[in-house]
């Protein structure tokens, strides 16, 4: 019979580290998917996930059992991702001339007729990636959780540990920051 998360954790806390392995196996896919939203290189993604598991193991006794282990773990994962963003902040400003030919073509298509620019195009995904990389860590986290993962303000507050009011303020600022970046990116050519 498969043991529950609570049973496995109890065993780890009793001094049996091997009981942690099924938890790693069960939840790693979800943490990898989360980490890949914030880091591009696979080596960085692996470092993030490894750090999540290391912190989870060290702080396992702080899991109270009143909420699912997965929620507790995801909160930890979001915090590790946020720390990663803060540690790898890049202040590089991308302009239109620095975009790839496919990205420029996609933008030109959009400028002519927004309806014709395909949302599923790889160029559009690369473009948004470039925009996200220029955002501040707070802004990137908020845009990713709110706009891309479509989580509610309450969920984001729970995941980040910020108050709902702070999440709303940061979301407002993040959108403004994003629009500024887009304006700068397209200024040379279209404005």
């Amino acid at each position, binding site marked *: 019979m498969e043991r529950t998360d609570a049973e496995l954790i109890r065993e780890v806390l009793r001094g049996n*580290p091997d009981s942690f*392995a099924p938890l790693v196996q069960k939840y790693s896919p979800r943490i*990898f998917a989360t980490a890949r939203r914030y880091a591009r290189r696979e080596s960085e993604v692996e470092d993030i996930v490894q750090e999540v598991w290391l912190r989870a193991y*060290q702080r*396992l006794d702080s899991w109270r059992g009143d909420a699912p282990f997965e929620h507790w773990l995801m909160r930890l994962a979001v915090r590790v991702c946020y720390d990663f963003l803060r540690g790898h902040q890049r202040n590089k400003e991308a302009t239109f001339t620095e975009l790839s030919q496919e990205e420029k073509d996609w933008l030109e298509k959009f400028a002519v007729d*927004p309806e014709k620019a395909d949302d599923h195009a790889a160029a559009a995904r690369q*473009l948004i990636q470039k925009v996200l990389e220029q955002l501040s860590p707070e802004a990137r986290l908020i845009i990713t959780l709110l706009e891309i993962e479509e989580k509610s303000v309450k969920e984001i507050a729970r995941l980040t540990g910020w108050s709902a009011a702070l999440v709303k303020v940061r979301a407002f600022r993040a*959108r403004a920051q994003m*629009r500024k970046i887009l304006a700068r990116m*397209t200024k040379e050519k279209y404005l």
Partner: protein
Amino acid sequence: MNLPELEKKLLKAARSQPPADSVPYAFEQRVMARLRAEPRMDALAFWGRMLWRAAVPCLAMVVVMFVLSHLGGQPSDNLADDFEQTLFAGISQAIESW
């Protein structure tokens, strides 16, 4: 260019392809090997370590206070009187000003 529309379209593009949830080969074994190398933090051991760390600045503080008390003022003949005076200084001041 319509920036709000561009923003909407790009976010839609980001939503259209969620990142892969694939796990590298033998990742679980690697994590477990690392965890075994770094044993779980014991709360008592943590407190013990922190108390030892706190002992150094406390000791330094005691030395500094000792040196200051011997260099700064003249030693009192009656320590009990001085102590009482210091302890009740606030009350005496309040009575005097009343």
